[in-house]
């Protein structure tokens, strides 16, 4: 398979190495009023598609003071159904307006012709799927005129038709499409527990120069008889096992920016800021130990 150099990720990083937090509407006013000491913010792209009103207004104000990443959840890159050009055009408008330092989406599908599940559904890891997603990622990157990062998702099932491991699929996809990788450490942990693979091997196999961002989040546990399935809920603190995996990952991806995601059961802004500072401390500790 041909390999494209990840030129764009290797150069300047306007997003600082100290951790950022996911921006939620409930925190807009507090962010504007208190300017919390975090490195940057990441916003869900679709939440700021509105042509006017207070939401894009807030984002523009916050953008004046912080580096920004736009993180999409609705392009459904892995869907066999045609790419939604209207959605892509709206994303382009948001990118043009807010000038984010990073733009990202997911390695997942989410729609059938005429209907949308508004979820990050798992891909079969086949060559066919790989070529399909890579083509669409190139289409998106061409439309936006920039590289995007692709995030590994949490999943609760695997398809028997898969021909490769998830990390191979994600790495090959980045190589094939020229995209970068958003390594979600919580998702790696969740998927590793749900499917019984080695999370540390996954992190080790991620191509060094392609990884341009790391996500951390909380998850929940559902019991099914003797087994449990971890669910990616973004509604709580990062768990100890994920912090440990993060410490390992951040030694390998030493200068990659980290983001704390917390989307439901939102705590006060200060608690999110504290979680970001915890990530900063973990990073410093990991680097001190490595030195």
């Amino acid at each position: 398979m041909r390999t494209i150099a990840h030129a764009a990720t290797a150069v300047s990083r306007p997003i600082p190495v100290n951790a950022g937090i996911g921006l939620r509407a409930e925190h807009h006013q507090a962010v504007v009023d208190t300017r919390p000491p975090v490195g940057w913010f990441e916003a869900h792209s679709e939440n700021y598609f509105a042509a006017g009103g207070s939401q894009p207004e807030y984002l523009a104000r916050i953008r004046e003071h912080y580096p920004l990443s736009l993180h999409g959840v609705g392009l459904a890159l892995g869907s066999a159904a045609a790419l939604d050009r209207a959605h892509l055009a709206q994303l382009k408008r948001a990118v043009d307006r807010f000038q984010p330092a990073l733009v990202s989406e997911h390695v997942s599908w989410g729609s059938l012709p005429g209907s949308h599940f508004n979820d990050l559904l798992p891909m079969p890891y086949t060559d066919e799927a790989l070529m399909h997603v890579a083509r669409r990622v190139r289409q998106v990157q061409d439309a936006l005129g920039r590289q995007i990062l692709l995030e590994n998702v949490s999943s609760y099932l695997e398809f028997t038709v898969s021909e490769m491991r998830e990390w191979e699929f994600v790495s090959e996809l980045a190589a094939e499409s020229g995209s970068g990788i958003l390594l979600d450490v919580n998702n790696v942990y969740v998927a590793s527990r749900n499917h019984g693979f080695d999370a540390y091997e996954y992190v080790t196999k991620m191509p060094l120069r392609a990884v341009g961002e790391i996500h951390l989040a909380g998850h929940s546990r559902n019991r099914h008889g003797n087994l449990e399935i971890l669910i990616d809920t973004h509604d709580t603190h990062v768990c100890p096992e994920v912090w440990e995996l993060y410490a390992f990952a951040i030694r390998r991806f030493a200068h990659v920016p980290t983001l704390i995601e917390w989307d439901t059961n939102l705590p006060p802004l200060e608690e999110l800021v504290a979680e970001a500072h915890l990530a900063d401390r973990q990073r410093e500790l990991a680097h001190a130990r490595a030195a």
Partner: protein
Amino acid sequence: MPALPELQRRFGAALTAGDDAAIVPFVRAAGIDPARRIAIYRNNWRENFLATLSATYPVIRRLVGDAYFRQLARDFQALHPSRSGNLQQLGAPLAGYLRQRFAGTEHAYFADVARLEWAYQEVLTAAEGGPLDVGSLRQVPDACWPQLRFSLHPAARLVRSEFPVLRIWSAHQPGADGAAIDRTVISLDAGGDCLLLRRTSSHVEMRRLARAEFALLERLARGESLAAAASQACSCDAEFDLTQALQRNVSLGVLAGFSPGATPEPVNGV
């Protein structure tokens, strides 16, 4: 092995129609029944939809109660699945759905409430616009005024209802006591509202308009000439003060632009 479109079609059918049989053979069990794994995604699909609909229609939810709202969302989703990767659009068809579902029942007013709540959402997110160039408007020659076309601000909405929807809406806001909708507190026989919704710097304002002023704005919003719109307003109210209505709506920013419209017919032919 099914190709990608077929695999996804089967997965989708498992979520929406509960038809697992065609996808189960392609899901690894690994200790947990594939049907339970698929059920996690089905649950996410329903819960995400419910949460979005619930955030868009808080008054409907309060009127029907959480349990019934859940059922309503499920029935609505089956007929009107989300069509966009942007969740904010999925509630658009609810008023039409409720109109059909509750037509001729004592709950026929739900459709009016949903229409108002959707208009509220649209006002929150619509584009900026205006202000109207008052200087240029003053320079329009008298003869050209009848043919002027005014445009409404993109974030202004007109809602005409069959039922007293503003009272119902207000009584079911957070902190309000949720007045009974019967003859004792809010009577459905009280008649409908003519409402103007507009965005201010801090909130969405909802205001009752007199029928004449509502008719004027409604016709202007449809692109009709000032003459046609004014004549409709005067047919509602012979005393209608057109100048005052125009001034008020220009200064509020409701009228956000104008264009000359068709050239007036010369009075005596060519």
